[in-house]
């Protein structure tokens, strides 16, 4: 096994990896960054989505040796410096954009990629962009609301249960 070094969330990190070691395995098992989830392991669901050199990738479908030296951002890198939730994370909490939470790291990372490319997306554009991220609680309406809110656009306030 050779040692692979990546810059993860701004810090240089190294761990041993085989030729077949996937980026998601390296993050979770090598670096113990378990915020990135493995859902389907077949690049369908997007739970493992992270950024490599600023671009979205499914970490279950990238060999870590193939991106040695790259800059990687994971969900652990999305909070503010003081530890408070970042804008997208806070919007997911505010708009109940997560139920079981399993897809959430990938959803947040995908949303960040979208907003970088298209800072004021329409609701249709949000839905289309998130087509590679599956929420099996089917909580898509609130996920879309959260992304719209994170972009600074008006959304209907979260539903409040009747008293």
């Amino acid at each position, binding site marked *: 096994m050779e040692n692979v070094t990546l810059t993860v969330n701004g810090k240089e990190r190294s761990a041993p990896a*085989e*030729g*077949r070691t*996937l980026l998601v395995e390296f993050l979770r098992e090598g670096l113990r960054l378990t915020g990135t989830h493995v859902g389907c*392991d*077949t*690049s369908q669901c*997007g739970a493992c*989505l992270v950024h*490599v050199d600023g*671009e*979205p*990738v*499914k970490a279950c*479908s*990238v*060999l870590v*040796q*193939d991106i*040695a030296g790259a800059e990687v951002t994971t969900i652990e890198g999305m909070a503010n410096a003081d530890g408070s939730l970042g804008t997208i994370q806070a919007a997911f909490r505010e708009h109940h954009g997560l139920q079981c939470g399993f897809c959430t790291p990938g959803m947040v990372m*995908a949303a960040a*990629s*979208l907003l970088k490319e298209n800072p004021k997306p329409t609701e249709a554009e949000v839905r289309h*962009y998130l*087509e*590679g*991220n599956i929420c099996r609680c089917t909580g898509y309406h609130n996920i879309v609301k959260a992304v719209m809110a994170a972009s600074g656009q008006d959304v209907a306030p979260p539903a409040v249960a009747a008293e």
Partner: protein
Amino acid sequence: MYDFTLTRPTTIADAVSALQGEDAQPIAGGQTLLPTMKARLAQAETFVSLTGISEMRGISAADGVLTLGGGATHATVAREAAASYPALASLAGRIGDPAVRTRGTVGGSIANNDPSACYPAGALGSGATITATGPNGSREIAADDYFQGMFATALEEGEIITKVAFPIPEKAAYEKMLQPASRFPLVAVFVAKYADGVRVAITGASTDGVFRWSEAEAALSGDFSPAAIEGLTPPSNDMISDLHGTPEYRAHLCKVLTARAVRSAQ
């Protein structure tokens, strides 16, 4: 996935030489190959990554031809070919999802020649020229000779696709009907109008992979309008039959999507 050694050459020459090794296979973006390897349906002792070869990643448009390096990703093509060849950029920008487009490459798609992939339709519909580089040097293969059936191509052992040159048409469009689970085309049609005639390439429909619908090409070369193909019988090239669609349904889609592509071509 079985273990293997990954090598990451930075030049085409080094990649070709690495592929001469015992049981060595190329891997590009890996968006098809890695899932296949996980299912243990593909394996090799050595995989030679093509992602580190900068001379294979370029995109340029000159003299009416858009040339893509074999390693150009779908995301890059969607962005950088939008001005020179919008229909092809649109095809690239609708493959898979954004994260898949970050990694997947034109060379990988054309080398694999999945019967439902998008790029084979763009390449055959544009009459592209594929440059394959191997131990005996580089050779140019016309798209008409390159695609040889489901997952079959003119590539020889040890060759990699280093570039693909697409003549830029006057008008073109790519229309696809998505298979709702895989998001691959159930059927998709690439129509391109050149000064010397119209090309119509269809993917997703035939068990032989991508094909040209010559009757539609002849009709559209005389009259580039949806009405020109109204009277045609849909193509009958051994349509795929599966739980997503009957052969008759796929044949019907060929005609509907060709008409749509003609209508939206610009």
